[in-house]
């Protein structure tokens, strides 16, 4: 029974919960059993909160009994550990925030609480969401459920691995340069980065504020749509939250994409791309054509500069955001003879190598003499990247591209070479630079590991992304495949 319960989609679970055939407590216990079995092998969570989850599940059952269930009442969810929660520590994967207990909930967490969702705990992340493999966590790496010698992707690798392994039904992550889509791709599940401003970032530990966006992970497009519905919408506590109405995302899943124009950018075939991945992507595009979509070649000529632009803008914003970790207000604090010495020690020992690298890069790019050559120049190139998309979307409804140039790589394989690691995000970064919504969906296997197809859309046009991803999912079996580890008795 346990294995059946963890394999339910949210939509299926909702029916069983509401008909009282399964209780929220039973659903939770099935996931806790899976966590107990697999966590020693995967390490998808930094903090587990089974006692809180049990209380929430009991409350969810009472709410369901009263006939007051909301779409996520009783659904077990993992939260990336850079989302502030009042009842469990928030570490952002960093030693500098060890033991930090937030005095408030992130807006997305508050919205899930109102729905009666069940929180399993805080999932593992690269420190301050900086990374593409979840190897930069101060709490140790997460492993990919498809192959434990490989990374789950990053930085939301804990959330992706938990959902892929049946430890959580849904999870939230954050995406600054691909940190939802790339791990979703490596773990064979669905991940969505919403339009910048669609979801409140209040209570998300800031990395690069003009790029960060919180988004959902699920095993099906419909499940992702249900979670997005709950977290989307204006929040006065976040001044970059946009006051536009939230459409009905599930209603967008019509299954019909006939006549839809899908842009295929030539620039998304880079040197170093795995030919086996390329072949799977080509098959997926052929399937979309069979479903009645029209494939239209488009050009995004500044794509090749997106990675470089990102690695100026994101570290610059990070260096400013991370100035708040000074050992005085919260977090690690190491003594020193002077205030300066205290800063140097606390920050020097509290941050890990990738975070230090990016703070240094950002501080350099913003410093006198380099500001115009790096930071301002990058902001101008960002304009060019955005214009490429604006022009392409005059001709097409969505753009399709691979999520990553390769399948999940081996742990340790890229840690010594930061530039090589940064290349994992080459296809996901442009959407963040332009603030566009983008979704990653499983589209097959190469070398026995999941391959992922990405759709990017017009600002606030999540409905079209969800529609095309759902139509593709209905026509293909990939979302029904499970990692052997997760389903063996």
């Amino acid at each position, binding site marked *: 029974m346990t294995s059946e319960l963890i394999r339910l989609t949210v939509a299926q679970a909702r029916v069983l919960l509401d008909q009282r055939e399964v209780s929220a407590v039973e659903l939770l216990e099935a996931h806790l059993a899976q966590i107990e079995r697999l966590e020693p092998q995967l390490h998808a969570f930094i903090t587990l909160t089974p006692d809180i989850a049990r209380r929430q599940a009991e409350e969810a059952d009472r709410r369901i009994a009263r006939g007051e269930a909301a779409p996520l009442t009783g659904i077990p969810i993992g939260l990336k550990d850079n989302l502030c929660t009042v009842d469990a520590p928030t570490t952002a994967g960093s030693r500098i925030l060890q033991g930090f207990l937030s005095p408030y909930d992130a807006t997305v967490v508050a919205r899930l609480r109102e729905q009666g969702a069940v929180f399993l705990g805080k999932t593992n992340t690269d420190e301050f969401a900086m990374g593409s493999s979840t190897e930069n966590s101060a709490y140790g790496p997460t492993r990919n459920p498809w192959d434990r010698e490989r990374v789950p992707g990053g930085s939301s690798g804990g959330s992706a691995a938990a959902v892929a392994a049946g430890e959580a039904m849904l999870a939230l992550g954050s995406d600054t340069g691909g940190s939802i889509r790339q791990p979703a791709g490596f773990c064979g599940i669905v991940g969505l980065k919403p339009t910048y401003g669609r979801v409140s970032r209040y209570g998300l530990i800031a990395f690069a504020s003009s790029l960060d966006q919180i988004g959902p992970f699920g095993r099906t497009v419909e499940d992702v749509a249900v979670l997005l519905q709950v977290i989307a919408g204006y929040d006065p506590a976040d001044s970059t939250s946009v006051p536009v109405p939230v459409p009905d995302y599930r209603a967008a899943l019509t299954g019909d994409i006939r006549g839809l124009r899908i842009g295929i950018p030539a620039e998304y075939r880079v040197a170093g791309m795995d030919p086996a991945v390329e072949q799977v992507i080509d098959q997926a595009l052929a399937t979309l054509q069979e479903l009645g979509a029209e494939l239209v070649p488009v050009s995004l000529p500044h794509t090749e500069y997106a990675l470089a632009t990102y690695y100026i803008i994101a570290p610059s914003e990070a260096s400013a955001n991370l100035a708040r970790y000074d050992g005085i207000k919260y977090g690690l604090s190491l003594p020193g003879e002077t205030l300066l010495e205290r800063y140097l020690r606390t*920050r020097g020992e509290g941050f890990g190598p990738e975070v230090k690298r990016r703070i*240094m890069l950002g501080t350099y790019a913003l410093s006198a003499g380099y500001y115009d050559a790096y930071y301002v120049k990058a902001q101008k190139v*960002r304009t060019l990247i955005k214009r490429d998309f604006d022009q392409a979307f005059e001709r097409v409804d969505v753009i399709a591209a691979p999520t990553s140039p390769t399948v999940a790589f081996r742990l340790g394989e890229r840690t010594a070479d930061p530039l090589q690691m940064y290349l994992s995000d080459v296809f996901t970064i442009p959407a963040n630079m332009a603030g566009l919504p983008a979704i990653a969906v499983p589209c097959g296997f190469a070398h026995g590991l999941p391959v992922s197809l990405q759709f990017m859309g017009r600002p606030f046009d999540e409905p079209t992304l969800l529609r095309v991803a759902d139509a593709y999912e209905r026509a293909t079996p990939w979302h029904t495949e499970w990692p052997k580890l997760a389903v063996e008795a």
Partner: protein
Amino acid sequence: MRLSREIVDHVAMLARLGLTEEERELMREQLSSILEHVSRIQELDTEAIPPTAQVITLQNVWRDDEVRPSLPVEAVLANAPESEDGFFRVHAVLEQS
């Protein structure tokens, strides 16, 4: 482009990052190669292009200047390593000479 030791030390001090000897050398190598890669953007002519600081072109967000409840002082100070009489306790910024 190869960064000098002086630049690395200067940037680390600006960022208030205490680096070990080993880290300073590694940082010099890695930042040099990353900066070489990102310098590719210099190829582009952006003379007439305005910068994009944020993509949604939001204007100022206003609200009425009303007194509203805030977090309780105890909650704000709960995570502070040191506090005193409802304040953060800070190392002296100005020292007596």
